[in-house]
């Protein structure tokens, strides 16, 4: 269990979701989800079916109605306030579709900001950030982030997610803003660096080219039903699972 990066058990979260038929209650269920350190899992589902909500639950940004989330052995929702924020900062790295980099800051400052929030000694900040940016091929580390290309920004975002050497990296549609060629390169990089840093990767995407990159895959529907990630799930199976989850409109894996 020492290498368990993520352990989600019987997670239930109901929220109000806007659909074509108006605002309706929606229940997200995850029976069980485990990731070992270094393990990489792709979670697929259609847009608006709760993928990002699940990531927010795992990151402790929102609280579930039921269930537990353990990250690196710590129960996320047992901690409150600054303690939970600190746990998130130390244990989880997040990569977003639109990168969410801090404008007005340089590349290295964006990376150092992550270290600043997690109590890493200040004297180590620049060295660690620079080493990782060098590894990711960012030469102009003091260049302002908004003056960088999309590909460079993506790499800075990856560096920021991994600089604290988290147990878990959550990637939310990390290639959605990139063209296919850059998307491939970005995913290569994310997966490779996560391996190097021994971080578990939970990647959420509905990009059809993604499943072939991951040995372990799941849909939200399959998590709700089976709850166990034990190997490859076929593309057809994914599609079926998604169809069922979205089509019911009452939640994935049944109503609450």
């Amino acid at each position, binding site marked *: 269990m020492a290498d368990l990066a993520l352990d989600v058990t019987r997670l239930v979260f109901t929220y109000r979701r806007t659909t074509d038929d108006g605002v309706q209650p929606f229940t997200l269920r995850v029976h069980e989800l485990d990731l070992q350190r270094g393990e990489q899992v792709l979670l697929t589902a259609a847009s608006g079916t709760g993928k*990002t909500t699940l990531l*927010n639950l795992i990151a402790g*940004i929102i609280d579930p109605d039921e269930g537990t989330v353990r990250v690196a052995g710590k129960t996320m929702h047992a901690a409150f*306030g*600054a303690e939970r*924020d600190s746990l998130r*900062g130390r244990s989880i790295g997040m990569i977003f579709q639109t990168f*969410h980099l801090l404008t007005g800051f340089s590349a290295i400052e964006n990376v150092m*900001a992550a270290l600043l929030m997690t109590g890493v000694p200040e004297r180590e900040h620049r060295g660690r950030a620079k080493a990782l940016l060098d590894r990711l091929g960012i030469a102009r580390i003091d260049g302002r982030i908004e003056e960088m290309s999309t590909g460079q920004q993506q790499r800075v975002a990856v560096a920021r997610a991994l600089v604290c050497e988290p147990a878990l990296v959550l990637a939310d549609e990390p290639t959605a803003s990139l063209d296919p060629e850059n998307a491939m390169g970005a995913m290569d990089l994310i997966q490779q660096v996560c391996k190097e840093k021994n971080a578990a990767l939970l990647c959420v995407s509905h990009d059809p080219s993604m499943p072939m990159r991951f040995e372990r895959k799941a849909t939200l529907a399959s998590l709700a039903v089976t709850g166990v990630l034990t190997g490859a799930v076929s593309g057809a199976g994914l599609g079926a699972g998604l169809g069922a989850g979205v089509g019911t409109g009452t939640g994935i894996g049944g109503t609450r």
Partner: protein
Amino acid sequence: MNDFTIVLRSLRARWFSTVTTIITVAVAVALIIVLLTLRNSGKRSFERGAGDMHLLVSGEASSTVAVLNNIFYANPPRRPLMWDRFEQLQQQAPWQYAIPTAIGDSFRAFPVVATTPEFFSSFKPAPGEAWAFASGKAFGGDFEVVLGSAVARRTGLKIGNTLYLTHGWSKASQGLRTDGDVDNATHHVGTHDEHADHEAHGEHEEHADSEGGEGPGGTHIHREFGFKVVGVLAPTLTSHDRALFCSLQSSWIMHAQDRREAQAKGEVERTTPEQLIAEDKKITAALLRLLSREENSAPANLPQVFDQLRRDGTLTVANPSQEIGNLFSIIDQVNRVFLAIAVVVLVSSGISIMLALYNSMEQRRRQIAVLRVLGASQGRIFNLTLVECAIIGLAGAIVGVVLAFVGASLASGVVRQRFGLIIEPDIGPTIIIVLLAATTVLACVSGLVPAIMAYQTSVARNLRPAA
């Protein structure tokens, strides 16, 4: 990289809003400082200028006008006293000193005070501070002149120079050189009243034709009596710094020359002291100090002497300290209004800080959400926002202090030019520290609403791609 860097980057990202807000705060702070310091230094300057005299006696219409004209040289006094009345005055009380002065003429629009050597030996321009000479000495005889520090600075005159005086003075031309007023012309010191008399009888034009020329503003320069500069006073930070001083007899001789030429309807030989008649011997004020054991306190008999002198309807008796107090009690009412306005401006600048941050909050929410994801607590975000406000407030206050120095210097120049008062900007460290602290606290209070908004920012909502 630390929290301060994050705050600075945030301020830089909204530089226009940051700069304009800082300027708003700075203007309010500067306004408050200028008002406070000019008020304090103005009052101090007034109090210093009255020196250690207890009473001022003149023929002016009111005691306030008497003080303003005879001590602060606001305008030429208009009602002279005769010398024999002054001699009577000397016998009326146990004076420590009774010093006559005659004011009315000028040099390059700086007032000339004709007086006795006691003016320098007995009268102190500020309580406890005797006159000091930057160079030279007090006048010892006739047609010698001592320059106030500002006069020496503005005119560039030095010991040994000879200058020529002008009837009346035109403040608009203060400091401006007039052809022939140094080294090669003739001058008169006299009361403004006499000058008016000359003009009324057409004598002014005669002098101009026969001896002199026109000075600034149509004033008349007499080129019969040159005055040699024998001393330059050290700065006193009083109105006396912008005056020149010569002997009373010099003034009388010059005016006697006018009288004699008017009577002879032509040029006459140079007037001697022996040719002076009672009519020539006029003064415009007497500076009086009673014998007193303690230098800085009024003697017990001052009220009685004051009342005794006031019984003579031809005299206006003023207690300078009291007049200055009365003057400032009036000015204080206006000052309070200005101060209230300045405080309102400061409060409104606090509101502008709040609005600037409030309006930028939509842009900032995503950044706040990102910092939260990176591990920043809500409390830390709250503090970062408050620090941002505090920096705006502090920066505004610092800029305001600098502006105040510049503004007060400009204002003191205007006051010196327009009213003849020397008011040096004096911004004490206490005022600066209090204002810096108060402005910073006000800025933090103004930042509470944006800080609470930042604290409550929803991370999940603001990390959506659309956000």
